[in-house]
């Protein structure tokens, strides 16, 4: 461990704000990339099911 304490880890020698902001933003973009295809998949499957039902009627 490079840092002495947890608070100095958060503070990052005064650069904490920048470092954590970067990691936060990156986490958001990564999360969007993981979640959006899952949501799209649900929607696509629903659309196909609806279409199949319509055609059976």
């Amino acid at each position, binding site marked *: 461990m490079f840092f002495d304490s947890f608070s100095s880890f958060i503070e990052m*020698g*005064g650069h904490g704000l920048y470092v954590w902001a*970067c990691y936060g933003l990156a986490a958001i*973009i990564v999360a969007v990339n*993981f979640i959006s295809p899952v949501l799209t998949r649900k929607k696509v499957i*629903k659309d*196909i099911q609806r279409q199949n039902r319509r055609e059976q009627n």
Partner: protein
Amino acid sequence: MWTSLKRLYHKMGSPKWFYEISTRWSPWFLLVGSALMLTGVVWGLAFAPADYLQGNSFRIIYIHVPASLLSQSAYIMMAAAGLVGLVWKMKMSFVVAKVIAPIGASLAIMSLLTGAIWGKPTWGTWWVWDARLTSMLILLFLYFGVIAIYNAIENEEMANKAAGILAIVGSINIPIIKYSVEWWNTLHQPATITMTKKPTMAPEMFIPLLLTIIGFYCWFAVWVFARTRNELLWRERRTKWVKNLVINAPTNSGAHQ
């Protein structure tokens, strides 16, 4: 040799095959990618020593550099997929090219944002016309062009082909753009510190970077697979295999039936 290559080509052109193989591989890419990212990020944030010049702000490197690298190679991959689609008329390839575009753009945005935030403690300002940041901005513009084509052309086949041509032309231009921006930069700002160019990097700084780079590539594969599968489901919605698959798929609306 030739026949097995040909067989592979036909397999890769088959949506069903791609769907199944990517479903099988995705968890492994996710697992390996997440493990690498976790190790790399924890190592980079907590254990790697601080940079003697930039202090702790240099820890941004572990996401900035992978995002930059990946968004550049994603553009090349997109162009290559477009080329394969145009020359060998392989529709699968167009699907992959299409799903790469938004992912690549999001990575370019990530690279720009982290670069700008990194710039604040390094240069004292949020935005500096540094060669790397400027090239990345232009790369984002190139992505915008490709995405705009997909949005503007309704006919899917036309849109795929047009975007393919644009991506190929763009990828031929990328090295020229990079070269001219670097040249321009040395002309106007000879004394700036480049953030990421280190002649030698200590191994305890470099290894975590390597881990996050590979980790990002694995995640990228997961994203591309997932989006491609969605596209395939919709394109192949009239085939038997999709219908069977969809009947068994659990969704909220399915519960009401």
